[in-house]
């Protein structure tokens, strides 16, 4: 009703929907999320750009491990700060700074010198992936997922809390993607890597922030609904993970041969103990195919709907080496 009332007021004031603009394009933003990185023989190259031609900014690049093979731990967090001058672009080969064998996701945020979150919708980012965990090896790049800053709230910004749908643009309600796969992963497969958020409307659930992931005590359940090319519906395939989901489509189709279709990822929203509610931030598909024409590729998952969610990054002051560039 409210939207109708707003619309009526806009019409009364002579402001039609023609003033509305929404672009189905990637746009620069204050937060750029990369759902997947890998380091080692497989590797990742991030390219981050400040598209503002007059103002520089500090950025905080936060890495969250799904799993670190060398250290045999998961859900660890590590961050680095950089200063980007106007129009500057930097390239980060992750093998230069992360352990071989680590895999996870990356959050790139614009921050102020005191570590608080900054409204700076000028960050663009892409990730190049080489993944030799699959055969044939996959080489492709994907754009980081942009989240714009839509309001400032010191309570959240100073604490490093990203409030999707409140201080940043919204999360999707669902992630959806087509896939192409056969039962035998030696011939073709599709992998999905998905990152979750926490639901701020469920205060009784475990802590939402990334630091809780360090303890590995947050279980998250994903419910996946799958339609194949005959519109066959597979219900309620669930997967529990800690700080991210890493899923082979072949693991789902373990008893039935199929070759294409689409999949829908939703977070389990039942507020049962030990299972967090919340929504997915985003994800990517990694695809390889030896059977057909040997296509390979990595792409962001499609998204639908709008939801809120929460994510926290470190709010410590920016590194002195970076802030010194500001005064210099």
């Amino acid at each position: 009703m409210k939207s109708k009332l707003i619309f009526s007021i806009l019409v009364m004031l002579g402001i039609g929907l023609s003033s509305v603009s929404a672009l189905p394009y990637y746009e620069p933003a204050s937060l750029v999320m990369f759902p997947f990185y890998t380091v080692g023989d497989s590797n990742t190259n991030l390219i981050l750009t400040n598209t503002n031609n007059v103002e520089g900014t500090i950025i905080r690049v936060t890495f969250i491990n799904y799993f670190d093979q060398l250290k045999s731990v998961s859900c660890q967090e590590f961050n680095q700060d950089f200063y980007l001058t106007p129009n500057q672009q930097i390239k980060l080969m992750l093998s230069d700074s992360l352990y071989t064998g680590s895999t996870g996701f990356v959050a790139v945020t614009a921050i102020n010198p005191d570590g608080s979150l900054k409204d700076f919708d000028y960050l663009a980012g892409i990730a190049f992936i080489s993944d030799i965990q699959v055969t044939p090896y996959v080489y492709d790049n994907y754009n980081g997922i942009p989240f714009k800053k839509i309001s400032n709230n010191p309570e959240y910004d100073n604490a490093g809390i990203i409030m999707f749908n409140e201080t940043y643009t919204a999360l999707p309600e669902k992630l959806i993607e087509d896939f192409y796969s056969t039962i035998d992963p030696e011939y073709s497969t599709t992998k999905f890597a998905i990152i979750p958020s926490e639901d701020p409307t469920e205060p009784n659930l475990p802590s939402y922030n990334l630091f809780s992931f360090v303890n590995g005590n947050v279980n998250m359940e994903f419910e996946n609904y799958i339609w194949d090319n005959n519109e066959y519906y597979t219900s309620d395939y669930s997967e529990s993970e800690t700080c991210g989901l890493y899923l082979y489509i072949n693991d789902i189709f373990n008893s039935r041969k199929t070759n294409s279709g689409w999949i829908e990822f939703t977070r389990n929203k039942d507020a049962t103990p030990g299972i967090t509610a919340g929504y997915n931030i985003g994800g990517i598909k990694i695809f390889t195919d030896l059977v057909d024409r040997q296509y390979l590729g990595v792409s962001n998952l499609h998204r639908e709907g709008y939801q809120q969610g929460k994510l926290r990054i470190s709010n410590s002051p920016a590194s002195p080496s970076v802030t010194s560039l500001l005064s210099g």
Partner: protein
Amino acid sequence: MAKQKEVNSKRLLALTAVLVIFAAAAILIVNSDENLISGFAVSEPASENQDYSPEYSPDYDPNSNIQAGMFDNSIPNTPASILVYPYYTSDASNIGAKDTRISITNINKNEAVIVHFFFVNGAENSPRTCTVTDLKQPLTPGQTYSILVSDFDSGETGYIIAVAEDDLGCPISFNYLIGSANFKNSQGSQGEYNAFGFKSYLTQGTTHDNCVDNSITPTANLTFNGVEYEQAPNMLYAPGLFNSSSISGENSQIVFAALKGSLLTGMDNSATYSALIYDQNEQVRSQSLPVWGCFESVAQTTLNPLLPTTGPAWIKLTAANNVPGVGLYMHYNSGTNTNAFTGADQLYGVCTTGGCINTSMTMPVFPLTGN
């Protein structure tokens, strides 16, 4: 006179009351917990009979995005009524090395739709022909459909526009289509990208351009103006390009596809863009580009002289004559550097001062049986 005064007084009082109520309503709206700034009030119903509270997970109503879109220009990869695949290629004599697989999915679990594919030929004639070949494909609820381009438009290179339409061939609002493409080309580039999706602002099922059928409206306009379909930007960014002489050894390529013209007689062939190129040291240089036409694949040989050898660079492309488009940036490794990365993804798009670009395309209207 006293009576007239009393009437005037009552009128003034009534007018004041109306203004107070109006102001109070406005304050209530602005101060509501579902505030305007957040834009995506999750409990905001988009229609009378649907609930969008977080606890209820309905089948997606993409039209609810539109209102939200007022505050979020950053929503790539969402279901839409028109999909644009900026690049396809194939070689009939060597489909193992050069081909494209297009996928499209109807994520509506209850309603079928017909998709009208238009393959725009970007062959580098002088001038480009920009001619169009088409294909219709019904999609049942939940269906995924894939096609190898070599099976339909073999030996050609260009881009594809897929339009949701009804049984009579009229374009309709049906924001439930997603798509992706895998390609391999003769330069050695390969990768996967998502199609650009342009949502309709009309009520689901409504035809665009008052289309009725081909006896009354043999053509229909697809208008990207923020009222019928989403607009297009006047600036595109290629966020990471490499000189092939740089240490990482990648080769880069940009592909552009115009969103203007006729899907019946040929697409507009006049797109003109200017470029600003920024290197890692923030050195900027401007570059006039030749007329791109309806489709352009800017090869490494053209880009190399513009790009620094010291590292990546990025490019701003500004539409000079209001012909907007979509595009990809691509990379491939033609050398022996095993550290070189390859791949492709969508160009960024932004509306700078002056706003987004309104554009339109004309499409033929005919029923599926006339395919």
